[in-house]
């Protein structure tokens, strides 16, 4: 009725106004229209107050109030001359609007009479109304909206965007991870302590459905929040990209190195036997020095422990990426058939370092592509050498037509003697010191893939929280889950730290020998009175065992890739789906269900 009266009022006054205007009574028409608008607005406010408990009126009222508040705030910012804040406010408002609309859509999706949907929908209501999730939601919205303006405005635009992407994605992932854990643990433990679960589980709902419903609710709210955060990150990235760049090169770098999705190729030697020969030479020398460890000269090259083999291979790679003075190295990039299809130039990205003092902080090198000297105005000297800042990443454009029929590209790097001065050994980091990149897609697709990988991680955390909360109290379950989360997030760093923390049997030792070694070591340390070393060894044993059963998020971290304009590979997304979203989530769910299915919910410990 409210709406009908409003429409009738607007229609009537506008109709009379049109009629009067047609008859030449413009001022009277304006008065009628103004009266109509005043009454209409008053009617709207009246309706919002009187029918505020009707769901759609309440929704409409919230949107109206939110819009009015945002406009008011924007007016204040405008009056203060804070235009950046107006942009941030507009972004936060848009994100809130998307969130509100998404929430409404989810509620509709969960409206059918299915028990699991009922549980999921109630969880979403709980998350929003009990403000568990709201704190994190507001946190994400504020951070994303504020990040672009707290990054150093004097920096290169390329780095500003990269920083924004890195920080906003990290903040989104971290905040949503914490929210997911607290929400999952909180909902299931609170329902047990406040006993709402008595009513739910005396209805025809089995316990697996109950857990699945909770998980579905958390996953849907995460999906919505990721969509909102993704929209915010995309909008503010585009906003940043529209800001003035330091120079044309900076502008070009934004378009070609950040807001893209690039595939990357690492070099291989033109002759595949070259590295193997280097390995054999190195192994022979090692065997001469330490035959007990590396074997005798007549032993085959592969009769070395895995750890020693990895160590030797690392040394080979370091050597291969080192170029002594007056020497050259040839690097070949293969598999560039796709790159040849694109009109955009290839990007040779490298970071030259000298094993000694440089000439005024610069490195000189000669670069030849398919036998031709590479020339670039501004950095090429009269002698045809490239003069580059030491220990910085440099990106050089290469014509895709240089790719040969086999889909390969060969470059030769020479360590010259500029002006008769001998340069120290020139080297590159084997991991990312020399790479060739080419565009394969856009930033948007890459961002969606990144958010997809994060969602899989959140799905696992939701199930982990529910499984822990099904048996443990809120504080204990929170501690356990946080421990697992931080171990999973920093698995690689922890592994490296543990390696140096205490003595431990070598990986090459068989399992039973490791156990014997550990027992012997314990006795030795006790007999020698080295209790602190013993304590450290025990800590390492516990930590290593714990890490063994904890998933590693570090291996599935797309944030550095998308921030650097690199393609988030499909296999990373697939691994995230299979491992984080499938295997780990399933395992946590199975453990949770096994504990929960036979639990006495009304049990009293006396």
């Amino acid at each position, binding site marked *: 009725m409210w709406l009908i009266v409003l429409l009738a009022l607007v229609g009537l006054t506008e109709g009379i106004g049109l009629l009067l205007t047609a008859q030449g009574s413009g001022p009277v028409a304006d008065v009628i229209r103004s009266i109509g608008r005043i009454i209409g607005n008053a009617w709207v406010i009246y309706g919002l107050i009187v029918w505020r408990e009707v769901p759609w009126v309440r929704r409409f009222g919230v949107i109206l109030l939110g819009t009015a508040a945002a406009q008011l705030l924007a007016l204040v910012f405008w009056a203060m001359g804070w235009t950046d804040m107006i942009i941030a406010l507009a972004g936060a408002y848009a994100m809130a609007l998307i969130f509100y609309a998404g929430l409404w859509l989810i509620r509709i999706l969960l409206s*059918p009479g299915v028990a699991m949907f009922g549980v999921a929908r109630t969880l979403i209501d709980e998350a929003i109304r009990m403000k568990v999730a709201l704190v994190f939601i507001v946190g994400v919205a504020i951070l994303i909206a504020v990040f672009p303006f707290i990054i150093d405005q004097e920096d290169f635009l390329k780095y500003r965007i990269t920083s924004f992407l890195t920080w906003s994605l990290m903040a989104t992932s971290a905040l949503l991870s914490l929210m997911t854990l607290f929400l999952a643990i909180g909902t299931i433990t609170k329902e047990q302590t406040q006993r709402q679960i008595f009513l739910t589980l005396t209805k025809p709902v089995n316990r697996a459905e109950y857990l699945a419903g909770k998980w579905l609710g958390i996953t849907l709210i995460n999906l919505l929040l990721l969509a909102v955060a993704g929209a915010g990150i995309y909008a503010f990235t585009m906003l940043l990209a529209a800001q003035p760049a330091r120079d044309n090169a900076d502008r070009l770098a934004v378009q070609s190195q950040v807001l893209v999705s690039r595939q990357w190729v690492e070099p291989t030697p033109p002759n595949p036997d070259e590295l193997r020969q280097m390995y054999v030479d190195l192994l022979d020398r090692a065997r001469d020095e330490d035959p007990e460890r590396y074997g005798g000269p007549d032993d085959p090259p592969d009769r070395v422990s895995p750890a020693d083999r990895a160590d030797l291979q690392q040394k080979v790679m370091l050597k291969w990426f080192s170029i002594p003075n007056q020497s050259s190295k040839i690097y070949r990039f293969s598999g560039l058939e796709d790159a040849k299809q694109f009109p955009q130039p290839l990007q040779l990205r490298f970071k030259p370092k000298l094993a000694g003092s440089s000439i005024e902080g610069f490195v000189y090198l000669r670069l030849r592509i398919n036998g031709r000297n590479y020339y670039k105005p501004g950095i090429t000297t009269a002698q045809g050498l490239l003069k580059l800042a030491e220990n910085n990443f440099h990106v050089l454009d290469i014509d895709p037509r240089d790719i040969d029929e086999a889909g390969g590209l060969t470059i030769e790097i020479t360590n010259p003697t500029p002006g008769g001065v001998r340069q120290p050994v020139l080297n590159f980091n084997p991991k990312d010191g020399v790479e060739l990149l080419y565009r394969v897609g856009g930033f948007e697709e890459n961002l969606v893939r990144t958010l997809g990988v994060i969602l899989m991680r959140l799905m696992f955390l939701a199930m982990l929280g529910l499984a822990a909360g099904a048996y443990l109290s809120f504080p204990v379950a929170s501690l356990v889950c946080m421990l697992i989360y931080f171990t999973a997030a920093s698995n690689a760093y922890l592994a490296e730290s543990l390696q140096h923390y205490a003595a431990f049997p070598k990986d090459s030792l068989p399992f039973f020998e490791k156990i014997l070694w550990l027992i012997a070591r314990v006795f030795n340390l006790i007999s020698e009175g080295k209790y602190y070393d013993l304590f450290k060894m025990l800590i390492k044993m516990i930590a290593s065992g714990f890490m063994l059963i904890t998933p590693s998020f570090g291996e599935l971290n797309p944030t550095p890739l998308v921030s650097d304009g690199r393609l988030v590979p499909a296999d990373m997304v697939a691994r995230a789906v299979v491992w984080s979203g499938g295997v780990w989530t399933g395992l946590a769910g199975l453990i949770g269900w096994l504990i929960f299915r036979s639990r*006495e919910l009304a049990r009293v410990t006396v």
Partner: protein
Amino acid sequence: MSQAATPQADIPQAPLSQDMVVKCIGLTKVFKDFWLRNRVKAVNAIDLDIHRGEVFGLLGPNGSGKSTTIKLILGLLHPTAGRIAVFGQHPRDVKNKQRIGYLPEESYLYPFLNAYETLEYYARLFHQKRGIRKGRIDTLLEMVGLQHVARRPIGEYSKGMQRKIGLAQALINDPDLLILDEPTSGMDPIATADVKRVILSLAERGKTILLCSHLLSDVEDVTDRVAIMYGGKIRRHGQIDDLLEQHDRTMISTPAMDPQTEERVIQALESQGVCDTSIARPRQKLETLFLNIVAEAQASGAATSGAESGGKIAGFLATGADARGDAVIEQLVATRSTGSDAEHPSESELARDESKAHEDQVIGSLTGGAGAPGPEAPSPAPQTPPQEQADTSLIDSLIQKKDEDHKPNG
């Protein structure tokens, strides 16, 4: 029902009756401490039978084991010893719960949901379609007199209002077995009377009700049979009339007599050898007096603020009234495709005849039309197995086992 303090108590030897709804044999629950040592024997080897269509009262002081027994019946606790069958099935059988309604001793509701959302949530757990769901929720909200505050969060409700929503959720599935744990706690006398009336109405429709309370007058008014528990054991049980009847006294009821007549009656009785006689004016119950005063005040249009909801319930179920209240309950029952109607045709037909006009009005309000079902007219709820066809294998096996236990050795 049979009861004994030990598992060696009377056990029915005849084949199990088809109308057995709950059967417990030697049911024991021991709560343990942190070190898993036995600490409290909350329920101690009780035998309990509840039959279809009866209102069974479980009485006892606090800590006597009533709520623990209910939780064992609902599958929220596992027995330490003994067996339970509900509708012939294990108490944790999920399909069986389609037929059970439960009101716990406290209103364990979500404070962030409003009344409508709360009932909608529980209706979804019963897989009810939107049309049925909406119809039942509106009807139940009307029945408990909370339709005018249906959009207010439960967290803002008084305890009595929360109990009413608790009762409504217990009825959302039109249960065959309704388990009510202290249903009237926190309610005012008007709401208490309404609840009792609802219990009696449901009992008339063949529903089985297990009522657990320590408010003895409430239990006395509505139950057919009671069991009195103390210290985890059933101390007395039986038909309520049998238990309360004073076999050594006789009471004669007549219209008011003048003192001379009273004297003559006493003399006449003494001449017949009846000593220790007395004549007194009967007293009405305080509850009856209270309800009458409130009803008179409402009839005179007296304004009220706090007790408005209670007043509405009284008006809805008491004035005019009972027939309309019956019609609402009937409407809930009628959405089932088979079941109690088929089993009690005469009662259902009678109720329909009496309240035809009111029923049309309720159906009209449920379907949005003048009695004619609209596009979202409620369709029959998922059919539950008729009780006659209930699988009694579990109960039979229990009896068989019990019989074997009782066979003399050798």
